[in-house]
């Protein structure tokens, strides 16, 4: 099923080198979708999912505790810029895990992002875990925003999408054969040929799906990208795995206004994704993750420096949400990681494994293929409503 769908999506049925045996073996993802939103730069968990009931919060960082928190039930408050997320939380569609960390402890953006996306510390594994998921499920995957993040790089083919640049309309009208000639020149090029052939097919598919929407032209911006991603994911023959990225979280200086400026597009984007998916929201799981958290105490410039544990979110119509789950380490000075950071109480891969397992019915062997060498990280259970 998925092969047929993918072949339709790419218009490449005849060119696909997958035989009948692979078709029979393929685990069809059906209508189940999995979306990853990568927040690059290190989200300050304590400024967003605020443990307002923790007595050590205010002494450590009072100016960074936002006023007008949205209630998540007593101990927890949500940043007021996240009103859309709050509505989804109240509808039971958001699960927050407050103190997870990836497999890297260097506090380097680059090492931590690589580890989060590969699924392992160091450079032991090539490619990203979402690509390995796509390979295993034979599910069509989409990178939204232009370049393909490490998360989606690997052996499985991945499409990328961003709205066409309005300044340079494709010259189909003036020179109908132009792209065919370009592709002919690249046909023998092992590097550029396959990439361009596929991209042209994807352009035609996206053109057909998005033409119906008034917002199709969406001039960039995360909410527009998220809306377009939602429409593509909702299409019957659309992608089933997708990754989006949003930066602006590296708040070393005057954190609060910078954080608000990044939270607004995140909130609008998650809401747009929900709206554009429509009925597909029931079959969709959205994971929101960042590479590390930030220091518990405010630094000398009204900001926070690179830290360790941070929050991860799971959204979706089938998510067993409306709650904050997982252990809270507390902010007592003696409990901090290396006397400065939120102490991790779990591995972010446990959340990812649990979510993938529940969403796609994957067993331990499948999870070991997606996250090699992490046998000791057990998948979290009870993430989705059955």
């Amino acid at each position, binding site marked *: 099923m998925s092969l047929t769908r993918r072949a339709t999506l790419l218009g490449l049925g005849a060119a696909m080198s997958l035989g009948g045996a692979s078709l029979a073996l393929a685990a069809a993802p059906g209508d189940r979708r999995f979306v990853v939103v990568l927040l690059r730069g290190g989200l300050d968990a304590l400024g967003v999912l605020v443990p307002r009931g923790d007595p050590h919060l205010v002494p450590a960082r009072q100016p960074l505790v936002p006023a007008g928190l949205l209630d998540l039930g007593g101990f927890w408050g949500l940043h007021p810029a996240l009103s859309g997320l709050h509505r989804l939380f109240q509808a039971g569609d958001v699960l927050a895990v407050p103190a997870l960390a990836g497999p890297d402890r260097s506090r380097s953006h*680059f090492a931590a992002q690589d580890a989060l996306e590969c699924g392992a510390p160091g450079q032991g594994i090539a490619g990203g875990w979402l690509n390995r998921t796509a390979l295993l499920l034979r599910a069509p995957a989409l990178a939204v925003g232009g370049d393909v993040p490490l998360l989606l790089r690997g052996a499985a083919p991945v499409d990328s999408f961003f709205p066409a640049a309005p300044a340079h309309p494709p010259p189909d009208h003036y020179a109908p054969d132009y792209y065919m000639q370009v592709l002919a020149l690249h046909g023998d090029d092992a590097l550029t040929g396959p990439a361009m052939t596929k991209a042209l097919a994807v352009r035609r598919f996206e053109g057909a799906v998005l033409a119906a929407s008034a917002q199709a032209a969406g001039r960039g911006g995360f909410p527009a990208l998220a809306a377009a991603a939602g429409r593509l994911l909702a299409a019957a023959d659309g992608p089933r795995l997708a990754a989006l990225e949003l930066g602006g979280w590296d708040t070393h200086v005057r954190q609060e206004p910078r954080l608000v400026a990044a939270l607004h597009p995140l909130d609008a984007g998650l809401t747009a994704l929900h709206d554009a998916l429509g009925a597909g929201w029931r079959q969709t799981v959205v994971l929101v993750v960042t590479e590390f958290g930030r220091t518990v105490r405010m630094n000398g410039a009204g900001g926070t420096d690179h830290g360790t544990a941070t929050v991860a979110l799971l959204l979706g119509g089938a998510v067993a949400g409306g709650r904050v789950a997982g252990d809270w380490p507390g902010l007592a000075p003696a409990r901090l990681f290396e006397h400065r950071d939120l102490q991790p109480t779990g591995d972010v891969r446990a959340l990812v494994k649990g979510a993938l397992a529940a969403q796609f019915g994957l067993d331990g062997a499948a999870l070991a293929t997606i996250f090699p060498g992490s046998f000791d990280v057990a998948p979290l259970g009870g993430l989705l409503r059955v």
Partner: protein
Amino acid sequence: MDTRTALALARFGLGRCPAEEVPRDPVAWLAAQLDAPPPWDGPPMPTAAEGLRALRDDRAAQCAGLPGGAGRALLHRGADAATSALLGTAAPLRERLVWVWANHFTVSRRRPMLAPLVFPYVQEAIRPHATGRFADLLLAVVRHPAMLLYLDLALSVGPDSPAGQRRRRGLNENFARECLELHTVGRDAGYTQADVTEFAAALTGWSIDRDGAAPGFAFFPARHQPGEKTVMGRRVAEGEEGGVAFLRWLATHPATYRRLAARLAQHFIADEPPAGAVGHIAGVLAATGGDLAAAMRAVLAEPAAWQGAGKLRAPFDYAVAVLRALDLPPARRPSLLSVTGALGQPWLDAPLPDGWSDQAAAWNDGELLLRRADWAFAVAGRAEAVEPLDLAAATLGPLCDATTAGALRQAGSRREALALLFATPAFFRR
């Protein structure tokens, strides 16, 4: 034109402009560009002092409810001047190196306040040292207002300094961490969180004097964390000179040399350059005290630098090569700021402090490549009286194969043929 000459022009230069003379001895032509910086003959480049004044003016305008716009105007003036240098230079290898080191020491206008400072940064901190000593380059970078703002060093205050005590300010370790990880020794050098913190303390006081007629770098003793620091096992004396001495030590560290050698080899030889070549170049850096011109000469001496299928041009490189080939009059030239944006690599606007990738994997995305083809068609419409086959011979020489030449001959229009030339696999590479 032989293959070696074509590679000298495309791989080491910026792509040939047909008005440029074909070098008789390509290696000598490249090596001569490394000797001394030629005088700047482009249009005047805005300075960092002008940039800081523009920020001041825009802030004042904002307070008064006026539109401002001085910063943006300087950004565009800087881009125009830098474009003229890229398209008109007689020393394209030197010009390429300026942008290689600008990427090594990334600053980005993704921080909006950097818009009027990014081009002055390249002009003042990078350009004079692109073929000089790496330690001088590093020090010029650390003292430039663009870097001081981009990685927050300007705001880092010693918690026990008079200013820290009075205003309850403290350290910001952003610059210290990225300087170790990205600019110098790299993560494998084995420094710890304590080293990062101590290094940050050692550099407190390095900031910007924003007032007066000539605002710029200044060391503020009242913000400097008192006392000696220990970073990576070395004692760092109190005061500005302690920071300078430690930065010089970092700049001449063997781990730094290996990373610089790898950067040059990856840029000029291959995405995964031969370890032997990286070792040679690092050895030259060590033997010359970090002489970047000597390192570049070592690259030119590597046989592997003259072989291989070529590197996939990054979008910035690609746009520059097409515009040099077309040699349009300035009034009809598209803005390199907007072209690089449309092609996926907005100029001086990298998302993160590690800058843009120098590997094909980052740019071999089908949609990004199609955008080159889109833009090639658009920009080909601006050309006048250019014979596509002549231009193919002039820019690619023997790198233009018979299939490409045949396709150009059969194209439906001159514009289409020109666009096809720019959209060929050979033009996508250097």
